[in-house]
């Protein structure tokens, strides 16, 4: 990029202008990232509390705190918020926005106004989803998957909930588009594709999925609305439709969407580990190619959500073998991350703890994914608590932990302050223990045969449910410690510009917090992104 106006130098992005209005019309990628951060975190806390209520209801058989109808509405809202309002946008919209331009040496994203529009679409979609609580007969009770024909028949507020998801889809598409153009056009001089850090690479692969797959679910959700309002007979067999068609269209998006959720988190892990190991990531190119391979193969495996839908035998077999193929690039990433530790100089700081926890939890998520990817075993555990345990290991244990790790990693960059490291470690430990107490019993329940989305259950499922509910309290305490510690960190000691001694541009060439256009002058890249040879000298010379 060309020269940056001089009067903007040394003014941190927080204080460039003050007041709520200056935030609501900002074009700055960092401020937009923070707008996302507060909105997304708010929705996360709401959905987390809904999850706690679900666990409390399931502490023992029979009714505990809510009726079956309320429970069905609660798990639907929990899923809708967690998927569409938290886990899909969390990493790309917050950390993609905040650090992507800095990691590639750019002053902002390619389309700053479009970036702000995406945030407004997100907020409108989110509020619309929550508004279903306030009017109409009841909030939607279909589950986040909106399966037809139940979603066509139920009297609840499905139409609005579906429209909300549609609008959120556009937010996701526009963010993806913005990142693709940014990465193609705005890399700093000297940053060839193979000198680009891995988080931008992960976002690049993710963005293509967002742009290409999200329209499919947009169309599908509109078809649900058309079916409910006009009765045109697409999915409801009583008027000539096919419910399995809905499932195909839904999963053609929603399986690749799993990689929208997972790939950026993997990018964070790849970005974090070298910084705390002080050596290059192992197998840089292989990690790049594995991200692209996951994004590509991920399009062809949606049928594994439908092994029991009545698909033909050969279709099930083909989807199963493709599913196993998509496991390989993920495994390769894990091996490369572990090998990066070899002969490093490992400094166990909170961001690294989260990255290592990601590897452990994501590996459990991935390996249990093999159980549901294989035909015979999936027939037994499909639509049971095993699946609930599996995807929480992937989504929460994987992406959720990477997300919290990313907050700890870029915290001094974003706010220029440092949180209390000891309490960060304590919070992490409690959260990690609580997490496993909640979700491991679910794997057991699924093997025992307890179906998911059950308000009540047979007595033989009591003990694992009890353990899981108690675990949810431990997890909540862990999360509270983490959040309180992060909030207190705002008043913590001033952080140095590069406290972790990283060699990527976001740390070496910007202040903490960064100035409005990030860089004093456009950086010129001469080294690989994780070149830690003589890094102390390099950092001193550059900053």
């Amino acid at each position: 990029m060309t020269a940056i106006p001089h009067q903007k130098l040394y003014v941190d992005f927080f204080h460039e202008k003050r007041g709520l209005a200056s935030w609501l019309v900002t074009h700055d990628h960092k401020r937009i990232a923070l707008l996302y951060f507060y909105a997304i975190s708010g929705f996360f806390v709401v959905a987390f509390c809904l999850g706690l209520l679900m666990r409390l209801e399931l502490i023992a058989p029979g009714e505990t705190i809510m009726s079956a109808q309320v429970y069905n509405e609660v798990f639907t809202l929990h899923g809708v918020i967690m998927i569409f309002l938290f886990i899909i946008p969390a990493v790309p919209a917050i950390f993609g926005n905040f650090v992507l331009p800095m990691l590639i040496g750019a002053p902002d994203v390619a389309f700053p106004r479009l970036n702000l529009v995406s945030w407004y679409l997100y907020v409108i979609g989110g509020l619309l989803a929550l508004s279903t609580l306030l009017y109409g007969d009841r909030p939607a009770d279909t589950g986040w998957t909106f399966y037809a024909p139940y979603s066509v028949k139920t009297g609840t507020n499905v139409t609005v909930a579906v429209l909300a998801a549609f609008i959120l889809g556009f937010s996701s598409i526009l963010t993806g588009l913005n990142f693709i153009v940014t990465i193609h056009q705005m890399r700093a001089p000297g940053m060839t594709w193979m000198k680009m850090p891995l988080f931008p690479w992960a976002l690049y692969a993710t963005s293509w999925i967002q742009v290409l797959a999200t329209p499919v679910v947009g169309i599908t959700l509109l078809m649900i609305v058309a079916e409910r309002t006009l009765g045109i007979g697409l999915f409801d067999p009583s008027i000539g439709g096919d419910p399995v068609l809905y499932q195909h269209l839904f999963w053609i998006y929603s399986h690749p969407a799993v990689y929208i959720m997972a790939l950026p988190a993997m990018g964070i892990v790849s970005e974090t580990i070298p910084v705390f190991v002080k050596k290059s990531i192992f197998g840089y190119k292989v990690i790049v190619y594995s991200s692209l391979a996951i994004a590509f193969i991920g399009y062809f495996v949606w049928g594994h959500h439908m092994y029991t839908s009545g698909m033909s035998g050969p279709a099930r077999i083909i989807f199963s073998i493709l599913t196993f193929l998509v496991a390989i690039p993920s495994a390769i990433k894990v091996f490369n991350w572990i090998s990066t530790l070899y002969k490093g100089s490992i400094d166990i700081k909170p961001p690294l703890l989260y990255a290592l926890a990601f590897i452990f939890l994501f590996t459990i998520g991935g390996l249990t994914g093999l159980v549901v990817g294989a035909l015979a075993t999936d027939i037994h555990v499909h639509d049971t608590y095993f699946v609930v345990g599996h995807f929480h290991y992937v989504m929460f244990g994987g992406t959720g932990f990477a997300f919290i790790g990313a907050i700890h990693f870029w915290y001094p960059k974003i706010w220029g302050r440092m949180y209390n490291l000891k309490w960060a470690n304590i919070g992490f430990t409690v959260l990690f223990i609580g997490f496993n107490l909640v979700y491991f019993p679910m794997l057991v329940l699924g093997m025992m045969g307890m179906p998911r989305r059950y308000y009540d259950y047979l007595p033989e499922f009591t003990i694992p449910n009890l353990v899981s509910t108690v675990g949810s309290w431990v997890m909540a305490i862990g999360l509270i410690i983490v959040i309180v510690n992060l909030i207190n960190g705002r008043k913590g000691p001033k952080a140095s510009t590069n406290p972790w001694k990283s060699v990527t541009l976001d740390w070496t060439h910007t202040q903490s917090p960064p100035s409005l256009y990030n860089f004093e002058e456009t950086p010129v890249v001469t080294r690989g992104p994780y070149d830690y040879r003589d890094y102390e000298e390099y950092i001193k010379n550059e900053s």
Partner: protein
Amino acid sequence: MSGASNFAEGVDLAFYVIIGISVFFLVGITAVMIYFVFKYNKKRHPKADTSITGSVKLEIIWTVIPTILVLVMFYFGWAGFAPMRDVPEDAIPVKAIARMWSWTFEYENGKKSDKLIVPKDRPVKINLVSVDVIHNLYIPAFRVKEDVVPGRNNYMWFTANQYGSFDLMCAEYCGLRHSYMLTTVEVVNNEEWAEWMLTPEGESDLDRVAAGFNVIKTNGCVACHSSDGTKLVANSFKGIWGLDRKVVVDGKEQTIKIDAAYIRQSVYDPNSQVVLGYNSGIMPSYIGMISDTEVEQLIEYIKSLGGDAQ
């Protein structure tokens, strides 16, 4: 949980293979990770070896070996699954009718039941029919599960190889009482089964049971009376048929039997004979809201939930 059908062995073998390999990798990865974190800790190892950036040889090894292993896992998954799609010609056909939120099983000769009654060691093919939304017929002990999709002719089959009673559940979310859409499979010997099949039933009790359930649902009875033994505001309907209960009549205790007459009176004049331990004055009279025929249906429904008078 041990398996009780012809598929259990193949499915369980796939479980052992996949979980075995998975545990091996999980333990291996975790152990190596922890070992490295200790061995190459900053204190013990202040200077990282920055010359290591990758290894083509290792990348090939850890691409090829997992590829082989996932293909092995795929094979066992496929091998356990393939027979599930291969229905023997002599399988006994049974139609499973799913509705929100109950099951009906209809046999070749038109006989119907709410539990699935099958003979041991004979293949049974279940034709899956839904009258409303998608359900899913799941018998954990048999390791079988298939969606019941309205408008599609899905099917499943199995050969039960153990006597006993096994849970049968709906595994596809279908609305309010999804988690109560439960029944059992009763595996009996062949002669017993043949005899049961030939016993005429007169009019189907089942339709009246379903109608009775509809009565309690549409009249809001379920808000206070559960059907699963849970004590809500009032007595559960489950297992009460024919029991002796102490009731309070005009302030005095007396013992009555829960029979048709008592149920009729409880619908129309609920506060005249309240079971000891429950409050009087909460339930309104249903005169003019629940008809005589509907009371008959309600009685059939309560009977279907068990008790000791039958």
